[in-house]
């Protein structure tokens, strides 16, 4: 227990991972809710919708990713660009109207700090993205859509993440 607490503080001190929310969250109620199956069902439903969108929009297509990186089609730029703009407008509105969560807590917007990992890691992920034609969301979607061989990619991606954790302290950040 004590060890876990120290480790968590350590992660906070050198937090470069902004997708993991709970170390930054000061609200334990929402964390507790997330343990329960009922509390998590809504995320399962959001995931189902996201999975449908990913396949129907063709962004999980290896060929579409190749077109994107060769500047041969506008499709992917249209999808990502309009997603970013929609996200931006949403965030502005959430801030403007001080929208609360469904548990009536204020929404927290995490400020991110620069780390060299965003460049080095970003380039490495870019290599992997062009090879597999899939970023992590589409990896799950491809498996669901029947391309079961992508399980190999999922397993090696987990291995890659584990290896990063192993050598993290030796890498420039």
């Amino acid at each position: 227990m004590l060890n876990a607490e120290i480790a968590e503080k350590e992660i906070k001190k050198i937090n470069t991972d902004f997708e993991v929310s709970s170390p930054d969250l000061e609200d334990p109620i929402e964390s507790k809710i997330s343990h329960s199956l009922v509390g998590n069902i809504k995320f399962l439903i959001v995931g189902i919708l996201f999975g449908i969108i990913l396949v129907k929009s063709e962004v999980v297509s290896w060929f579409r990713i190749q077109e994107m990186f060769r500047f041969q089609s506008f499709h992917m730029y249209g999808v990502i660009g309009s997603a970013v703009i929609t996200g931006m407008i949403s965030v502005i509105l959430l801030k403007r109207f001080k929208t609360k969560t469904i548990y009536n807590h204020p929404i927290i917007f995490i400020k991110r700090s620069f780390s060299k990992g965003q460049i080095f890691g970003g380039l490495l992920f870019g290599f992997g993205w062009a090879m597999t034609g899939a970023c992590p969301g589409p990896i799950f979607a491809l498996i669901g859509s029947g391309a079961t061989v992508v399980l190999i990619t999922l397993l090696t991606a987990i291995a890659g993440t584990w290896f990063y954790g192993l050598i993290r302290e030796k890498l420039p950040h």
Partner: protein
Amino acid sequence: MLKILSQPWPWYISGPLIGLMVPALLVLGNRNFGISSNLRHICAACFPGKIPFFKYDWKNESWNLYLAAGIIIGALLVRLFFWNDQPIVLNPKLTAELSAYGLKDFNGLVPKEIFSWNAVLSVRSLIMLAGGGFLVGFGTRYAGGCTSGHAITGLANLQLPSLIATMSFFIGGIIMANFILPIILRF
């Protein structure tokens, strides 16, 4: 209705829907849209070892694993009920280039000559499926996010580090697709 669902969705429909993931997850309990952290949670849950990076209460993040499970189910639902049989309309330049590497089947979401269990032991399949996967896992965590975490969530909140990360994703992808992948595809 089913006919509309079976068509591929244009970018101006699917893009905004993807963007709405950001406010939806924030309103549903301060969750940050970012899929690649699941890979970290799986490590933390299954084989944390003595690695500090994996010593945290992954159960607090279990919502994201439900999201990933949902993605698999959603994609399966498309496959079963509103699958589009028509091949994706691709740029002829791409199909011409890929044909030169022996990729002739453009019907599915992935090139079957590489992404299938029959082909999995070929050199290029192993490099692309396994090597590529390793880079995705390593790179996303090193960068602190992926397309959803940085390019969409981070940019939506005007975070400069996410812009740097997103530019790096694309520079890496452009280098790989145009200069390195053509070599790998020859094997």
